[in-house]
């Protein structure tokens, strides 16, 4: 019997373990994890493929993380069934683990659309260290020369950069008309596209892959792809990087309410008492969209895990919410995008833009009733956090609106009262 049972060992689970131990030093914690060593940084798997980071560098917590937190980890084990009446989780082996409080932190699995040939040798997804290890090994073993990356979002661009660094010729295929379309408006996307193309990446937008081809000698091995419009692109590898879908399998058929992910309240509890969910599997609150939605992002998963952990351990804590927020380092063009990046025409929204083509700098703010609800910064991100603070705390920026996008915007631009509140001056 575990006082706290956590299914999953990655970001949300880490946040939860740390939060539980802050409140309850003694209550037993058990973790069920499919991976042997989950406390590595999944966002770093592209650095692993490029050779910038080895597995040791990717460990975002110590090797003894569970031991130090007096938690029992059942690694390499898969949870197969949840019984809400018995309050147990069953493992593949048939063994049952009973709980008082349960956290579902099962994460997401890569989405692979129906595509002829997707079972060929040389097709990869890109989520776990195992994916990265297999991809890196494949590049070496077949001396891969060319790859097609399907999807030009966060994962797509990260794996594209890694493959370029390994010397491969990469074609990035994106169904939307623009790359990074969830993070950037058309203008910012064009700017970034220019940089990525200049690095040698072939970008195809408005199309997808309809078929993965074999090689002339062996149909079971990737030899190329056929795009929507019929063009063929020869390649040795295909990486499917479209996104992740929540792993809700465990709660299917139970009373736990799901939408696209598991629905939670602002304490991360599901509709079933004592059952919580956090991370990529959960639909948590988005304070910009003012609704619960899937936001599969590492920092939010840690935060949601923390909130769940506190509440499970009895410290009532409310999640103020996250939003779509990412920072990107790829192709040496730093990007921060938070909240509404590319809203539809709306008289209630005010858009401030500054574009410096010479320096490749693009800044955009979306305001609603003089409160920042969207923020895009390209190649000039050092003050992003100050703007995010104004956004998160719904600070009225009317009095200093004109200065928000100026190059010398900073804490000194803020009203003295706010500076005092932030304790930056006496």
């Amino acid at each position, binding site marked *: 019997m575990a006082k706290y049972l956590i299914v999953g060992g990655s970001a949300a689970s880490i946040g939860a373990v740390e939060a539980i131990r802050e409140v309850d030093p003694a209550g037993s914690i058990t973790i069920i994890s499919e991976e042997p060593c989950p406390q590595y940084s999944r966002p770093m798997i592209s650095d692993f493929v490029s050779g910038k980071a080895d597995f040791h560098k990717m460990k*975002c917590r110590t090797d003894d993380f569970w031991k130090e937190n007096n938690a029992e980890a059942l690694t390499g084990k898969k949870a197969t069934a949840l019984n809400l009446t018995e309050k147990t989780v069953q493992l593949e082996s048939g063994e049952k683990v009973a709980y008082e409080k349960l956290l579902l932190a099962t994460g997401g699995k890569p989405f692979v659309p129906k595509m002829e040939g997707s079972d060929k040798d040389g097709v990869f997804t890109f989520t776990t260290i195992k994916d990265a290890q297999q991809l890196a090994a494949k590049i070496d073993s077949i001396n891969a020369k060319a790859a097609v990356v399907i999807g030009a979002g966060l994962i797509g661009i990260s794996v594209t950069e890694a493959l370029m660094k390994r010397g491969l010729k990469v074609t990035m295929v994106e169904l939307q008309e623009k790359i990074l379309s969830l993070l950037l408006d058309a203008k910012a996307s064009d700017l970034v596209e220019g940089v990525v193309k200049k690095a040698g990446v072939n970008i195809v937008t408005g199309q997808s892959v309809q078929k993965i081809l074999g090689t002339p000698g062996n149909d079971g091995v990737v030899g190329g792809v056929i795009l929507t419009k019929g063009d063929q692109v020869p390649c040795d590898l295909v990486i499917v990087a479209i996104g992740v879908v929540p792993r809700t399998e465990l709660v299917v058929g139970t009373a736990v309410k799901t939408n696209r992910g598991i629905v939670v309240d602002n304490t991360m509890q599901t509709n079933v008492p004592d059952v919580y969910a956090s991370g990529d599997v959960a639909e948590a609150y988005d304070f910009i969209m003012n609704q619960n939605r899937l936001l599969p992002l590492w920092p939010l998963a840690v935060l949601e895990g923390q909130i769940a952990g506190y509440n499970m351990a009895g410290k009532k804590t409310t999640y103020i919410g996250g939003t779509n927020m990412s920072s990107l380092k790829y192709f040496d063009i730093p990007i921060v995008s938070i909240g509404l990046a590319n809203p539809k025409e709306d008289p209630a929204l005010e858009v401030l833009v500054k574009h410096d083509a010479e320096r490749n700098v693009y800044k955009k703010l979306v305001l609603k009733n003089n409160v920042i609800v969207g923020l895009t910064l390209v190649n000039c991100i050092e003050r992003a956090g100050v703007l995010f603070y104004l956004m998160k705390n719904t600070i009225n920026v009317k009095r200093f609106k004109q200065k928000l996008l100026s190059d010398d915007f900073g804490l000194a631009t803020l009203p003295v009262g706010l500076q005092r509140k932030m304790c930056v001056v006496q």
Partner: protein
Amino acid sequence: MKRIIAKQEVCMGCGLCEVYCTVQHSKSKDIIKAYNSERPKPISRVRLEVNKPVSFAIQCRHCEDAPCVTACLSGAMQKDEKTGLVTYNQEKCMGCWTCIMVCPYGAIMMDQQGKVVAKCDLCQGFDEPACVANCPNEALVFKEVKP
């Protein structure tokens, strides 16, 4: 814990805090070498904020609930529960800029050369941080403050 507080009303905006911070965090500890020849180029972890006539210096606040620590993708940012410091391990940094995205103070600097970040460490091992010790108008004070 002791933190650095800016006295905005006596800050002249001279920028010496940035100079001494840069030298303190250089390999050579020599002002000429630090600015002219040292590679990678040392960078200041304190930033002079100016909106004339207002100016003051800002550096990592070592927050109690540090958003950079929660957000850090690689484990490079940690909260030292004993000292209260927010510590930064450059060896672990992947240069993803997530900490920059969430720092309310804009107090985490980009080290573009190294593709990592840099931030104030309160000059560990010294009585006083270099910016405080060398502020000619005593516009920076190092004292116990509640976060």
